[in-house]
């Protein structure tokens, strides 16, 4: 994935130690910067080494996250999301 690409956080609810906040799942944002790789925390939580994964900082508008109840729609929120949680924003 290249910079400034629009991405969507996958809408899934697997069990376990997940570091993708539930309030961002299914939301669309854009890549602010690329980081890592870092070990997959979903494996590390169980004493495993953790596959190296690219970590992205994804930026969302408050309007995208909270809809009509956003305090200020044009404010933004950045979060770090691992690559396996991202899909192209235009994916079906």
């Amino acid at each position, binding site marked *: 994935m290249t910079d400034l690409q629009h991405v969507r956080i996958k809408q899934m609810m697997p069990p376990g130690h997940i570091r993708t*906040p539930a309030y961002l799942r299914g939301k669309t944002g854009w890549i602010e910067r690329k980081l890592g790789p870092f070990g997959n925390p979903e494996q590390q939580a169980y004493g495993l080494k953790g596959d190296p994964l690219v970590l992205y900082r994804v930026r969302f508008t408050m309007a995208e996250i909270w809809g009509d109840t956003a305090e200020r729609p044009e*404010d*933004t*929120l*950045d979060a*770090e999301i691992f690559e396996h949680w991202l899909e192209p924003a235009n994916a079906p």
Partner: protein
Amino acid sequence: MPHDQHDHLSPSGHPYRPDNDEPLSYWQTMEIAVRELLIEKGVSTAAEINAQIDAMDARSPADGALVVARAWTDADFRKRLLANGSDACREMGFDIGALQLIAVENTRDVHNVIVCTLCSCYPRNLLGLAPDWYKSRAYRSRTVKEPRKVLSEFGVNLANGVQVRVHDSTADMRYVVIPARPDGTDGWSPEQLAALVTRDSMIGTGLAKAP
């Protein structure tokens, strides 16, 4: 009279405060057990563990304040800090261990604020231990939903045109805010400037103090 109707008051007239002697929690017991085992089995020594606690307690927001003050006074350093926060802190001689730091900068148009909704991630290797409120459910849940209201409760009222950027520390990075340099500080030394940089200003729930 030891058991008269006022025995809940101390001689000074204030209510007694309960002793802080609650039973150990499960995890406190676990920590003690693991620590004692590590010492018994020769993996670590009590002196090493105490030294590590002392090293963590020695870290304080004053370290971060020196980093901010240098960024205000040294344009090249500011660029390096924004490009790689960890390397810039190490360059100043701070022992930040494995800390992966991102510095975000407040400007006339942008105000940054840091939160960790999932737990309480905090750049403690630079700033020391997090304030208790940073770990509260209220701060963690409200800052991503109504950051301006939270900021106003901290006494930070932003001008209308300022955009708020919330940063949720969800994974491996930790964050420090470079607050805006106060007006009226031209010609100040980094040491003088550092005295204006508060802990909260580096979380984004405060501004640097006015001179």
